[in-house]
């Protein structure tokens, strides 16, 4: 077994950074008091949670009382959609949600549920070939029943950053609530909820060097809607369940550290990204970059399709070289459907099949990129050489390129 490990799947999850872990450790066996208890021992737990709340709020230019901790980004998404729509329908304001075809399943499957089980109306906006929502489409989709727009800040598969500022301004003007799933974006971009007119925003700690099992929903004050978790009076009566103190502390610390490093990390990671993109384009013929370019793309995302090959095989070949990546291939999804995001961008099934995603992060290095670029061309060429689809493609007159056999 080879020892080398190159982790290029930071969008899936990130390691807990040493500083974050250190901040969390006292909250397992030393400061474990239930924040809901009366005695002064528990005050320390309450203080720790409030400190973390301020840390998260500050990073978003929000107020601490607008941050609600949840168990995950998925829970935050569920809460935002179900809570707002139920409340709005009850208040007779409307029952129409507008979202997009490229959302994470946490949004898409929740929207499907609201549509199928609870008879809400949902519009799924298309995107352009780069994965961007067009404001025109949003405007055209709005009806007098529209009460919520949920559009992701940046896409997890292809890294495209959506025109959030324009969307926020439009929604505010038209008095429609705007929710954004910022689970990926919050790890890489400066987000100012006031400037961007965001009413609700979902986040997750484990995408930003914090622990798994903790997320948050920003709810603009004084917005009120239905609870999602019912039980005790935690989180100011809006989200029941004994607080995950260590997780919350880790989230706060992770967010503060992330913010302090952003101006340095972002350009460094973007440079590695561009090196990888250029390297692949130079070394592998018929490789297509999926997603937007430059500043419209998350600084850490690289997504390519290699015609004629299937993604799971590439992942396993890379795994044998110690490289962790991801694919939108049908073969590697539980449902055997290709990535809904790549299809929404207009890719054929074959191109979605041959997709690979590399996502970089804080601990990625030049060496990682050089190593990947030293093994990937041969892997693709070798699998293409055994593909009947590639053979057909060559017969259609495609130039095989210098390295293909």
């Amino acid at each position, binding site marked *: 077994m080879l020892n080398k490990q190159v982790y290029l799947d930071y969008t899936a999850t990130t390691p807990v950074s040493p500083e974050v872990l250190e901040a969390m450790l006292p909250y397992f066996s030393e400061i474990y008091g239930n924040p809901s208890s009366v005695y002064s021992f528990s005050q320390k737990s309450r203080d720790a949670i409030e400190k973390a709340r301020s840390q998260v709020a500050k990073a978003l230019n929000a107020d601490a009382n607008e941050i609600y901790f949840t168990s995950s980004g998925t829970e935050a998404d569920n809460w935002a959609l179900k809570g707002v729509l139920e409340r709005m329908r009850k208040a007779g304001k409307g029952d129409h949600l507008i979202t997009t075809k490229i959302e994470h399943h946490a949004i898409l499957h929740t929207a499907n549920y609201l549509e199928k089980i609870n008879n809400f109306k949902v519009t799924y906006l298309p995107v352009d070939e780069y994965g961007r929502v067009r404001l025109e489409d949003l405007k055209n989709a709005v009806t007098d029943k529209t009460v919520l727009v949920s559009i992701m800040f940046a896409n997890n598969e292809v890294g495209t950053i959506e025109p959030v500022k324009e969307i926020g301004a439009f929604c505010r003007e038209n008095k429609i609530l705007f929710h954004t799933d910022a689970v990926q974006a919050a790890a890489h971009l400066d987000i100012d909820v006031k400037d961007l007119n965001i009413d609700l925003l979902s986040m997750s700690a484990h995408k930003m060097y914090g622990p798994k099992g903790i997320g948050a929903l920003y709810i603009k004050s004084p917005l009120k809607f239905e609870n999602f978790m019912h039980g005790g009076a935690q989180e100011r009566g809006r989200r029941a369940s004994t607080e995950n103190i260590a997780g919350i502390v880790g989230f706060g610390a992770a967010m503060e550290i992330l913010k302090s490093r952003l101006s340095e990390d972002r350009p460094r990671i973007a440079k590695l990204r561009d090196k990888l993109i250029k390297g692949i384009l130079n070394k592998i013929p018929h490789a297509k970059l999926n997603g937007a370019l430059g500043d419209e793309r998350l600084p850490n995302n690289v997504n390519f399709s290699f015609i004629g090959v299937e993604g799971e095989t590439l992942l396993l070949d890379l795994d044998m070289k110690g490289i962790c990546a991801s694919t939108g291939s049908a*073969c590697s999804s539980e449902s055997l459907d290709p990535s809904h995001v790549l299809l929404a961008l207009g890719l054929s099934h*074959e191109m979605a099949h041959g997709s690979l995603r590399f996502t970089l992060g804080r601990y990625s290095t030049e060496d990682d990129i050089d190593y990947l670029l030293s093994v990937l061309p041969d892997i693709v060429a070798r699998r293409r050489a*055994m593909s*009947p*689809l590639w053979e057909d493609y060559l017969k259609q007159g495609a130039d095989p390129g210098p390295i293909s056999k």
Partner: protein
Amino acid sequence: MALNYSEKVMDHFANPRNVGEIENPDGVGEAGNPKCGDIMKIYLKVNDETQIIEDVKFKTFGCASAIASSSMATELIKGKSIQEAWDLTNSAVAEALDGLPPIKMHCSVLAEEAIHEALNDYRAKHGMEIIPVEHHEE
């Protein structure tokens, strides 16, 4: 590994046997997988007198399970008569690979079908009756 592939699957995936094409083959068959859109192509060289498969090659566009199944299936029919080759089932291929994850069983059907198509191509060219190919999912 996210998928629990057996060592044999990984071996045939990493070093597939009988990859390629045969020039002027006696039979060619192609099968596509309706489930996820994969394709397998089989080339046969058959001895007309003995009806023994002397050589077999494949090309596959598909997952590791599809590639390993193709590789194993070609090994299992090489040196066999066309009748024996016809009788090879996808579950026999999967078994020879020490099993496939349930969600990946359909990939081995691809191998069975491509072989049937190739054998029928051979039969057609030699004035033999075509045997209907049965499609199944697992």
